[in-house]
């Protein structure tokens, strides 16, 4: 069993999916990622990217039919963080148990997610009409999934909630939107995954990143956190590969690539 900690991006785009030939390098599905550790199935957020993970899991169910236990941590209820949920293949299978975590009372989280499954907007008739067992769970501070320890940061309306995942060897990664309280929560982490949509200059000029945070701010937050490595994700919706590549060279950050697996500790970086 692989005891190391890795992360795979399934969706890297903010606001809306942008499938196109100009987004094949960095990705065009709305935001979702998987935390890889041993046999655990753990994800963060459920934008449309989660559907490609779902297709992978669906194939696995066909090859090896056994119940799936899936854990998804939600950072926010914005469309681009939840909209993939009704189309996540495993929820059509009665042997799937899907845990949805958020630091809110269950009824509140349920109410927020229910709209995705209502008959107004979907061919379904509510969350409970799906075949899998979906369990909404309220979390605070910390929770363990197997030997993976998950810390829950401070939540806010604007920035949602950050999560920090620890492997037993102490290595960790943080998934977060930019927020002033981040350096404490992410202090010394091996890998910091932050939202960032554009440069400061572009933000001033009205780039439609709409508050996704700038690369410069992401870099200074990473520095303040003494994070060993930073990856920026939730790319601006109309950002082409070329523009993103150029910006990453100029500002000096690593943009998340959809489909790519990143090791959390530098000694085992996969190139």
């Amino acid at each position, binding site marked *: 069993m692989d005891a190391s900690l890795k992360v795979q991006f399934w969706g890297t785009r903010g606001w809306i*999916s942008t499938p196109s030939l100009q987004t094949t390098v960095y990705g065009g599905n709305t935001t979702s990622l998987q935390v890889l550790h041993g046999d655990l199935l753990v994800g963060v957020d459920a934008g*449309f990217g989660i559907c490609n993970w779902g*297709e992978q899991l669906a194939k696995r169910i066909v090859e090896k039919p056994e119940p799936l236990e899936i854990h998804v941590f939600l950072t926010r209820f914005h469309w681009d963080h939840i909209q993939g949920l009704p189309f996540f293949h495993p929820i059509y299978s009665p042997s799937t148990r899907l845990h949805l975590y958020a630091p809110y009372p269950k009824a509140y989280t349920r109410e927020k997610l229910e*709209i995705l499954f209502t008959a107004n907007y979907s061919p379904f008739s509510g969350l409970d009409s799906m075949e899998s067992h979906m369990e909404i769970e309220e979390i605070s501070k910390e929770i363990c999934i197997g030997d993976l320890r998950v810390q829950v940061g401070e939540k806010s309306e604007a920035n949602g909630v950050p999560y920090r995942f620890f492997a037993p060897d102490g290595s960790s990664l943080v998934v977060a939107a930019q927020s002033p309280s981040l350096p404490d929560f992410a202090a010394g982490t091996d890998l910091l995954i932050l939202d960032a949509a554009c440069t400061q200059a572009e933000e001033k000029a009205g780039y*439609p990143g709409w508050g996704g945070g700038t690369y410069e701010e992401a870099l200074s937050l990473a520095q303040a956190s003494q994070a060993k490595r930073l990856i920026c994700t939730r790319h601006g919706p109309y950002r082409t590969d070329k523009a993103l590549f150029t910006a990453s060279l100029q500002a000096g950050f690593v943009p998340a690539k959809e489909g790519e697996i990143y090791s959390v500790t530098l000694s085992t970086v996969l190139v």
Partner: protein
Amino acid sequence: MSMSLRLWGVRGSRPVHKGSTLGCGGHSTAFELQLPGEDFALFVDAGSGLAARGPIGGKSLRSIYYVLLTHTHWDHLLGLPFFSPLYEAKNEVHLFSSTTCRGDFPSLFWALFSPSYFPLPVEVKAKLHFHTLVSGADFLLANKVRVQTYQLNHQGVTLGYRFAYGADCVGIVTDHAPLDHGNYLGDGMPVGAAPQFVAAFEVGLVAFMQGCHTVAFDAHFTEETLKLDWGHSTPDRALQFCLQAGVKRLILFHHAPEDSDADIEQKVERCRQQAGKAEIEIVAAREGDVWMLR
């Protein structure tokens, strides 16, 4: 005076982005009826394809926009908040949807913009007009384009559209499932077996499509993968209706997100074989394509 059909999004269920879908495209359903020389623009459905027109903040060329929705499922709706003409005060945007018994159209629309789901720091400034349509509607848009509707077999109330402008005529029939074995999905459709209903429905749909040069038809499934209660059709069914209605071009549309470009190519190829010597052109809906309607 001519009308052409532009495909902004051809995918069903959800937008999808991966290497194997780049050829046909991954945006969910949106069409534009291009009407050169008119002072209004006309769109059908508001899936993510509608957002592919460009970012919010762009300057729109016209000031009157019509957006007609087949129904309000996510794949046909989620691009609407990214429709840039909504954010310009100079514009009038007319939004059309079916009447549904599950909540009114304006509240369905505004829920998309609710700050807890969509914290966009810009404001909808266009003057909005909400219109609800029933099956069998027949009216003129801007005194120029004749619009007719027909309720399809799909969850809720889903409308097929027929547009006629000058000598050009096009049909958009999505989403729609076969009515086999009492599979009646639409609101108001009879529960239980009613063979007369099926016959009347099918005759009605053929009559509705008659005169259309081109029809974009729901071909989400194949006969092998068909899941009746999911509310979608197959190339075979699409072809049968088009042949009966004398349609000249069938655009297989609403591709399943799981289908690769190769899968879609195969679907088209088999449908062409099925059509044999019949005089009909069969093509796959491909993002960015523009079809003349003659």
